């Protein structure tokens, strides 16, 4: 089982137990504030932007070149930024904490 925590732009913490699939789907299934996911998870829209806590970056992995291009122009983007639709959760991600960038 994989537990993930979203820190939403208003500062709230939302924990999701038994998270499976893409991190974006987990967010939309749980109505996480700030994750609009307009394009449905195919990396078009940039509306599922999260910042992975630095200690998790190695396990989650950095954005590839195309994803980085999408994120480069997002406000509040950092080295830890990812599109949550591009993160497939595994058991390895149990305990993951991400900040939702929002708009």
């Amino acid at each position, binding site marked *: 089982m994989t537990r993930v925590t979203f820190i939403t732009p208003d500062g709230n913490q939302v924990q999701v137990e038994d998270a499976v699939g893409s991190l974006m789907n987990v967010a939309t299934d749980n109505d996480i504030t700030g994750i609009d996911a*307009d*394009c*449905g*998870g*195919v990396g*078009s829209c940039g509306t599922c932007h999260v910042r992975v806590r630095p200690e998790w970056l190695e396990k989650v992995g950095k954005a590839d070149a195309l*994803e980085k*291009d999408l994120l480069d*122009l997002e406000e509040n983007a950092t080295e830890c930024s990812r599109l949550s639709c591009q993160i497939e959760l595994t058991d390895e991600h149990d305990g993951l904490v991400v900040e939702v960038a929002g708009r």
Partner: protein
Amino acid sequence: MSQCPYHDPFKEARREKPVMATEFDGEPVAMLIGLKEVRKAARDHETFSSDAPFRVPIPREEDVRTVRQYPLEVDPPVHTEYRKIVEPFFRRATKPEYIEKMETLVDELVVDAVNRDSIEIVREFAIPLQSRALTFLLNMPESEADIWIQWGTHVFRDESGVSKGHEMEAYTNDLFDKAEANPGDDFFSALTQAEFQGRKLTRDEMQGYANIAFAGGRDTVINTISMVIAYLAEHPEALDALRDNPKLVTSATEELFRYASPVTHLGRMCPVDTDVHGVKVEAGKLISLNWAAANFDETVFDDPETVKLDRRPNPHIAFGNGAHNCLGAPHARLIVRTLLKKLSQHAASISITTAHRKVEKEADYERRNAFHTLDVTIEPRDA
């Protein structure tokens, strides 16, 4: 997957440099055609301003409307406040009851189309679908669509050569009168009650919102629908692929928006003399953000002229980019997703009998964009 019949008219120019010096309305326009350059400029409202009434659309629109369009033709920070007023209406397109209404509508229209011997997609399918779907977005009675259908493909520049712009302004002005007298739950009533910087909106501002609500999502949606249907007709394997894997609908929708790129470009005005990747733009003159060219940028999209229904990531900018990105995008995405789902459910195959392409003939390029007419026959699945 199969080759699309697309010809990207900006390919050669984009290989040379990300900007093309051209002209519209007798004025010079520095047209950005590389994806990264367009995205960057779309987010730089200080250098490239939207505070240019009638000039964000190219060609300019003084001749067809009398009001500045909101929130399209203003810059942040006021843009943010103007946009916030209508954002909740446009986000309703992601709600389950809205999705269900769209399914019912598209199912009805697709079943009707399949049961006819032949159908002209633009007038007999796309315009009714666009207009009736818009009643959901604006929360108006579905019967109101009967009026909107008469406005043709493009409110301002329909093939008939007659602009319906002034007729539409009179119609929406009347709706605001009615909404002020007797407010309901619709878009127009919401605008009459909205607060902006501690005051009510002026009638011109309300008219500016209504203007783009009708004009902005019209030819764009209609053109995308005809492009999607033509694509499915020319690629019968795509219907099979969507049937075999319904999850493909999401990525196919984005890829078909990239392929159709229904808005070729929009303008921005340079408030001061500006060097745009080597092209000098004088203060007060325009640049263009060419979404269609950007969406075929081979430095970003692998094999851009091929439609790959499973393309991901797919960082297209068919809905624009940055603060002004298309408010109607969730609604438009829902229309195409539902259309793909219902066609794959009810149609065995689609064949084109006659097709007349629309061509944008400009000073330095010609771009084929959708269809004037598209006659097809659709083979039902259960026949």
